[in-house]
């Protein structure tokens, strides 16, 4: 079972945190600090797995973002690597070539997508179509406002 997933930038800023085990805020911060440091210190060609405490860390970098998962001893590293990739694909499809800013400004969406994909630390639905369909349906339920879209906001800021 996955214990947690962290997304952070090359500068070490935490962009998303998902915990599948109950931990105190203090402990979460400590873990985050430690792991961000450990992962950022690793060189590009190094292997994507490392042992950490009694867990296995699986991480991968996409552009400026690191995706980092902690799994248990019996869990499969490679399939976790592909969980990360599938999540990136989902974000990519939803936002249309996703970038770090999308996740910053639409963090709630990133969480919603993750919840459809993984639940309780296990893969819930691995079909890209089905996950996106669920999110789309939810989006259709929202009140339509003459709103700025997330992308537009980003352009204004850049």
């Amino acid at each position, binding site marked *: 079972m996955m214990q947690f997933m962290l997304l952070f930038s090359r500068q070490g800023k935490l962009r998303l945190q998902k915990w599948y085990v109950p931990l105190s805020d203090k402990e979460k911060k400590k873990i985050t600090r430690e792991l961000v440091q450990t992962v950022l210190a690793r060189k590009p060609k190094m292997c994507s797995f490392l042992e950490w405490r009694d867990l296995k860390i699986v991480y991968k970098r996409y552009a400026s973002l690191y995706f980092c998962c902690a799994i248990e001893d019996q869990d499969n590293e490679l399939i976790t690597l592909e969980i990360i990739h599938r999540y990136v694909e989902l974000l990519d499809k939803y936002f249309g070539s996703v970038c770090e800013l999308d996740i910053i400004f639409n963090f709630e969406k990133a969480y919603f997508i993750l919840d459809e994909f993984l639940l309780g630390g296990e893969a819930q639905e691995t079909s890209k179509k089905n996950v996106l369909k*669920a999110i789309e349906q939810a989006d259709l339920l929202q009140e339509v406002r003459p709103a700025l879209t997330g992308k537009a906001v980003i352009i204004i800021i850049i």
Partner: protein
Amino acid sequence: MPAVSKGDGMRGLAVFISDIRNCKSKESEVKRINKELANIRSKFKGDKALDGYSKKKYVCKLLFIFLLGHDIDFGHMEAVNLLSSNKYTEKQIGYLFISVLVNSNSDLIRLINNAIKNDLASRNSTFMNLALHCIANVGSREMAEAFASEIPRILVAGDTMDSVKQSAALCLLRLNRTSPDLVPMGEWTARVVHLLNDQHLGVVTAATSLITTLAQKSPDDFKTSVSLAVARLSRIVTSASIDLQDYTYYFVAAPWLSVKLLRLLQCYPPPEDTSLRSRLTECLETILNKAQEPPKSKKVQHSNAKNAVLFEAIALIIHHDSEPNLLVRACNQLGQFLQHRETNLRYLALESMCTLASSEFSHEAVKTHIETVINALKTERDVSVRQRAVDLLYAMCDRSNSKQIVAEMLSYLETADYSIREEIVLKVAILAEKYAVDYTWYVDTILNLIRIAGDYVSEEVWYRVIQIVINRDDVQGYAAKTVFEALQAPACHENLVKVGGYILGEFGNLIAGDPRSSPLVQFNLLHSKFHLCSVPTRALLLSAYIKFINLFPEVKGTIQDVLRSDSQLRNADVELQQRAVEYLRLSCIASTDILATVLEEMPPFPERESSILAKLKKKKGSSKLPDMDDSRKNVNGSTEHAEDAEVASKVPSHTFTDDLSVNSAPSSGASLLVDVFSDFSSAAPTEGSDEHFPRFVCKNNGIIYENQLLQIGLKSEYRQNLGRMYVFYGNKTSTQFLSFSTSVSSNDVLDSQLNVQEKPVDPLIEAGAQVQQILNIECVSDFSDAPILNIQFRYGGTLQNIAVKLPVMLNKFFQPTEMTSQDFFQRWKQLGAPQQEVQKIFKAKNQMDTDVSKAKLLGFGVALLDGVDPNPANFVGAGIIHTKTTQVGCLLRLEPNTQAQMYRLTLRTSKESVSQRLVELLSEQF
């Protein structure tokens, strides 16, 4: 994707986020956040009722602030209100807030559960999913109580939508993990197993995880899942890649589901039914065959997914450990990966081969790869891969290749990364002992270990070599000769001095015939190291000297002179002084016969009983660290028992061997060291009771712990980097405490930063009585954890275990420094680098009283400097933290803001970790 899906137009949120992003410093970010928090608070408190949209926006902002790492202490109620909104996005944000900021406030939990109940009953699948996700994310006991019986019903109901079933399955999984006692087994279990047959692969995927977890707990109830899982797996592995449509991932059919099914099968032994068994074997063969086929895509995702299934299949093959043919094939496959260009695959192959090495069918096959693995150890650029190579070498080691493997590990140790040295040392020590045919090789190996990596050789390792030498006559002469030679090196590690001192003290006579190692030469050699050693080692050397007096009457005079010198007889350390006095006296008054009896050669360590005891002790869950402490005392004080027998006999004379046997005497094989090793890898820091801990930051005396039986009081004093703590154990009952013992343990990091030495404590505390224990403390370098005091005693037949966090904090080693305003500002500026300053703004927890604050700061250890800060309401302080290795100057400023009931605390020191720790400690005090 429709544009509408991307944002729901919380413009204020976007503006706020970009404001935060534009903040140039941490300080301005905090300022902006505080402004926003004040704004939101006023909106929530305002008379005007907020509309759902605004509420959602503000709750979302709070969530964002929390995720940035700030504390949020309000807004929960508004989030709960959102849950019952009929607008989907409002509900969604409400649930997200609740999921992220779980609050144990019981009133709110009731309201949240109410909202969840309504949504679960709504028959709207989107709402139901939201509610289920929330339960799965929070997973609290209250939720388990409320919903654990409802969810199985949803899961197996015929009319439940597929997506809801998926959420329900994993929701139940989470509840089963957190509160297994609340999830009732029942007739639904059989129907859950049949979800493996479901047409919807997403449902199967989710259900397989649930079934695996349940099957691990009660395998018998889920036995039927085996045949269904095999059938499902078989269909997947034989399907054409397009059959499974969107569940095919880069040309690999349902990799996640395959992995999960293979995992489920690992809960069970190989199927007994022959046709089922052969069907499973076929599946596994197909998976192995596919690994040999040319890849269908060059993408790494393709090979990862394919190999993920392959590794899981190999894990199942190893788990079954029954098909030699499959095991050997698996081994060959992994052998190929050992030389793969992908680092990830090499890593996993090494890892997986480790387990394969323990199977009798494949052990030999694994051994054929030894050269590749040794090569990996030498050439891999990534330390985590090298670590795996070490593990594998360790796992494949047997009598036939032990010399080669130990030699390779030793030579790797010379350049090994610091992070894995200690582990390698332990592994080498274990292998050397386990496969030693002649013990001269063993002695050489351990001495090499100490030479190469002395700092990483833990106590157990050198205790062990001494035990073995003492127990084996055939190696004693060789050991004495070898340590004597090793001690000749101009710089040798302290651990070598310990081993050398002990062995020469016992067996120096065996080499004294050679004029090159005559008694005087031996003594001079040892004594030349004396002044470079720490107190415990010196104590051990003194014991070796008195043993010399017995072994070699001709050097008695020389040694007595040494013992008589002021540096010994008046040594500041009580232990050393006492030894010098007592040994000198003993050597003067005792006749040769008495001396020979008292200082007789150590008896062999008992071999058998001990390991059972050690195991027993381990089962009781006592941590490893206290054991080490105990045995250190004993080994170092080795001659004390002899001396006690002669002089006053405080301790029964067999204590020494008994105690040592509990900790470290040899077992019939090597199991004990192996145990020690497994202990090492799993040693978790003990959590101590710490409710009174913060109260001791600014004071040194008080009650640190109290329960119905025992009260523990403390008095402590500190000077520079040293401290002494008097611990008072008060028995509150009308019954004796028996076998009362204590030990202080630290985690690995703290262990090197802080030394805590305990003086012995009376093993018996009478009813209503109090006993005292002294702890000597030395701060080696700055630290942030606290040592744990473990207390064990027997009260009315039951064993009591108590762990208390000892209030030894960094600020205890403060020495206040007075300085002028000019000096202060000059130093303040010198310490201006960003990492030297740590600042915290926090809310006042207590009434803001100037005198109280002053007293607290003085208690914290700094000198208060008046007239330095232009604002008289502010406090400015200075002090120096003394550690053994260094001194750290600290400047402090505390600015109270009575209006806002806030403080700002700024610390500047030359060391970031010190600034950080001091802020943590002090900010909790106001």
